[in-house]
């Protein structure tokens, strides 16, 4: 089977960033906590590929660790969204199919409620009230992933409940929760994986935004967003400080989006157009 080009490019970009993030756990070219004031504001050169910042820290090393922090925050945030959203969606669909319209209605209105809150503003509020930091950023981003997955799961599950093989499972006497997990979940796993990739990229931008305003990952841990914030005042004589972290965010997000699109093409060629539009619609809101 020939893989679509967007998937290949996306997978390569994503793999590069994941490897860099993993590598930073054990090794970075320079120590980012060591300040070498004598080496400050070096433009990109052989020793420092992406230059150094106002403390003489190596920008490449900071990008590696920043990428790791972004990946970790986003991964856990999307994980929270799936962990709560998917069972909720399955439950709502099962309840509707078994006459529990009220439960379904309540769950889905609860979802609408979260959607009604402007996500970035709420994330800023949550981190402001509970204190800035990576963990609160994860929670703030994660909460807004729950309705995305719940809605998508429910939509997919409702379409499956009228299929013959579900009927067969019911006739066999399986309970609705068992049917949901054994027969429905595997059949909607592909759309969920695609959506997870997209949400992952959205979470990376959200983490960068929160860190940019000082509410995400805290110093001395490097984060891409805060690097951009610090670069702003020095952009006139050290423009690489703004270009490099921004470029890193864009490549990471681009890689994930391309991979998501490619995955969608691979897993679901028939539904491609319709799903694409629905996803765009839900992404536009987040």
């Amino acid at each position, binding site marked *: 089977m020939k893989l679509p080009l967007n998937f290949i490019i996306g997978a390569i970009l994503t793999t590069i960033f994941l490897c860099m993030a993993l590598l930073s756990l054990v090794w970075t070219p320079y120590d980012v906590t060591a300040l070498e004031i004598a080496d400050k504001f070096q433009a990109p050169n052989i020793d420092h590929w992406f230059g150094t910042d106002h403390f003489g820290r190596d920008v490449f090393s900071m990008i590696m660790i920043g990428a790791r922090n972004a990946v970790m925050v986003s991964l856990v945030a999307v994980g929270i969204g799936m962990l709560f959203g998917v069972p909720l969606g399955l439950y709502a669909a099962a309840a509707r199919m078994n006459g529990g319209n009220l439960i379904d209605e309540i769950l889905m*209105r609860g979802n*609408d*409620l979260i*959607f*009604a*809150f*402007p996500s*970035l*503003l*709420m994330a*800023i*509020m*949550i981190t*402001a*009230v*509970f204190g800035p930091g990576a963990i609160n950023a994860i929670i703030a981003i994660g909460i807004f992933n729950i309705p995305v997955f719940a*809605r998508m799961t429910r*939509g997919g599950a409702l379409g499956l409940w009228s299929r013959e093989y579900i009927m067969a499972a019911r006739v066999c006497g399986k309970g609705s929760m068992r049917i949901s997990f054994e027969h429905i979940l595997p059949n909607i796993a592909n759309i969920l994986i695609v959506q997870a990739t997209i949400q992952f*990229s959205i979470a990376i*931008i959200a983490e*960068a*935004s929160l860190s*940019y*305003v000082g509410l995400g990952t805290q110093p001395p841990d490097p984060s891409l967003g805060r690097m*951009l914030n610090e*670069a*702003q005042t020095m*952009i*006139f004589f050290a*423009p690489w400080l*703004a270009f490099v972290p*921004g470029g890193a*965010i*864009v*490549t990471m*997000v*681009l890689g994930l*989006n*391309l991979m998501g*699109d490619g995955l969608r093409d691979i897993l679901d060629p028939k539904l491609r*157009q*319709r799903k*694409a*539009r*629905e996803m*765009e*619609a839900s*992404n*536009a*809101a987040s």
Partner: protein
Amino acid sequence: MGHYILKRLLSLVLTLLVATVVIFVMIEVVPGDPAAYMMGLSGSTEATEALRSELGLNMGAWDRYISWITGMIKGDFGTSYTYRVPVSDLITDRTLVSVPLTIYALILSTIIAIPVGVISASRRGGFLDTLLMGAAQVGVAIPNFWFAILMVLFFSTSLRWFSAGGFPGWDAGFLECLKALTLPAISLALPQAAILARVMRSSVLEVMNEDYIRTARAKGLSKGQALMRHGLRNALIPVLTILGLQFSFLLAGGIIIESIFSLPGLGRLVFQSIAQRDLIVVKSIVTLLVLAVVVITFVVDLLYAAVDPRLREGKRM
């Protein structure tokens, strides 16, 4: 239709009510003592006590909630703790910057996105399509605050076409204000335009497969004529929904952009208020933004139902 409107209206009011409870709990109950929180570490006991009685914190939570809601319905949002002016005045001033900025950004993103989407779709698979959709992919991936920083670098510092920030106020003349809002509007519009262009493209592609387009072509219309006369209107329906969503997203999403360009808008006000722990202002603005989102979604749903009767049965995914 009447039944449908009533049902949606009821769920709108319900959503709003629950939303106010959530906001109230988050801001007034969770931080423990809001007065101590607002005063910060430096607050003396007397000052904190004075603020507590000013905020009415000596009342129970339920009474405070009720008086907050009834006050808001009457248009009384309370007095800002840091600015010492009625919150409603503050909000009105700031809305006069934020809403025009949002509309400006929305217009820009539509002007860019619709032609790009249509051109891409009509050249499907071709070089231009690949190029435009590649650009759209990059556009989606660019964080708007980074784009804003780059724009300041190029257009304000290097080319000196625009000022790097600030807002002259509407008294300074419409064009001056438009100029001050241009860079922020572009920064907000670009990622949105990229999303919108992709939606527009897939929407046009879908419409072009419809039977009525084939009929129009069979009657002798060229592909372009069929698209312009029959397809475009239908292709715009999903775009409209997303425009509605984007309006509320942009209104709230301006927080960071407004800070970068030092625009005295709602987003910057809410951000400053969070920093200054002025919870009264934060509470009101968040509520208003939620109200905006809910009302806009409601209006879009109604428009949708008016256009497409099938949706009235409540078949929203």
